């Protein structure tokens, strides 16, 4: 059994707690959608997540506004259809929904490049969930920590993370675009992960 130690002071703890509550709102909505087919809860999810999905679709990409709107529709319908499999104890709603948006965008890029494959991104990169109880607690704390620390990242590291995660660019694509060595991209990503206290070993 792992002992998770936190070095947060009280103020940070309460900030974290208030953010937790907000996260729980979406997890509750998604659970209502999954269990009861609740359209009002789905509408709330739509109003929060659809504008984020559209921003994500347009982020650094060559997608047209039409493609972006189609992607938003496709992802929100997937959220509705797959919500029955969502378990709030295993994943935050935002991570679960982000994963679907990311995979759908990858599939859309491949379709637009006439890349014909029997595999969908959901087949190979679905949400990675763990069954272990201590992991869930550990992950929840990690998530709260990331939220708190992310605004303190130096701008060069934040910029690289945005290109890697929101624009979906590979490290070498980012290096090419910013005209910096690949090693610099990798080390900025690693420094950022360290600052966010992402843990690599037990």
């Amino acid at each position: 059994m792992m002992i998770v130690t936190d070095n947060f002071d009280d103020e940070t703890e309460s900030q974290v707690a208030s953010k937790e509550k907000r996260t729980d709102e979406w997890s509750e909505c998604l659970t209502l959608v999954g269990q009861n087919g609740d359209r009002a809860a789905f509408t709330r999810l739509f109003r929060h997540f659809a504008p984020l999905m559209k921003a994500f679709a347009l982020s650094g990409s060559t997608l047209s506004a039409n493609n972006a709107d189609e992607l938003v529709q496709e992802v929100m319908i997937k959220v509705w259809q797959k919500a029955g499999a969502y378990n709030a104890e295993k994943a935050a709603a935002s991570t679960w929904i982000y994963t679907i948006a990311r995979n759908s965008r990858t599939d859309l890029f491949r379709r637009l490049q006439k890349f014909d494959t029997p595999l969908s991104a959901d087949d190979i990169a679905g949400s990675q969930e763990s069954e272990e109880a201590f992991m869930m607690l550990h992950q929840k704390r990690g998530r709260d920590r990331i939220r708190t620390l992310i605004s303190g990242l130096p701008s060069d590291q934040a910029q690289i993370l945005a290109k890697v995660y929101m624009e979906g660019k590979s490290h070498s694509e980012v290096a090419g675009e910013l005209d910096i060595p690949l090693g610099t991209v990798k080390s900025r990503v690693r420094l950022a992960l360290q600052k966010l206290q992402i843990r690599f070993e037990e």
Partner: protein
Amino acid sequence: MSNAHPDLDLLTEYTAGSLPLTQSACISLHISQCTRCQRIAGQLADLGACLFEAQEPSTVGDAQLDAVLARLDEEPPLSYAKASKDIGNTPAVLQRLMRGDFSDLSWKNIGSALRISYLQTGDPQHELAIYHFKAGGRIPEHTHRGSEMTLILQGGFSDADGSYHKGDFLVRRQGDVHAPTALQSEDCICLVVLDAPLKFTDWKFRWMNPFLKLRTTA
């Protein structure tokens, strides 16, 4: 649990969704059997979600919402009811690329110790193949013109750097030379992703080099 893992750069690109399909499939198969990498990938997915939520939202009108609400009664595509369990020796991800089990694949013999079966993925830049080494078989020394990812699905092998077992994930880079030998105890089956053909350096096998073109279709 496995001792050889994808590095942090690969795990980051995997969770950000920027890896080629075949490499992503290989890494996801490793993660499905590695709690260490599950833990890291889970944190990295949470990071992606935090960045996603921190974006400046775009405008999405009520017409879009109405269009989605009108489509909620559509039947979900059949593909959502995908097979998610491994069948026999075939991991769930690979079931979409092959029929039956490893024994039902069509194989090409490369010397007496190795046979290869190429899987059709549609990825134009990478070859995804299953390598079957006979127990104790030695693979001729070869070098890599590009990068090679290997995931051990069964058995194990050793080379000058160490020995590797089921679930282990390895990357060889351009210019690395090695001559792996399958463990004596059982046949070794690996999933291999190549972005350029191998090149045999062992003189007895050099004649095969012109035949080792990258196969992105079976």
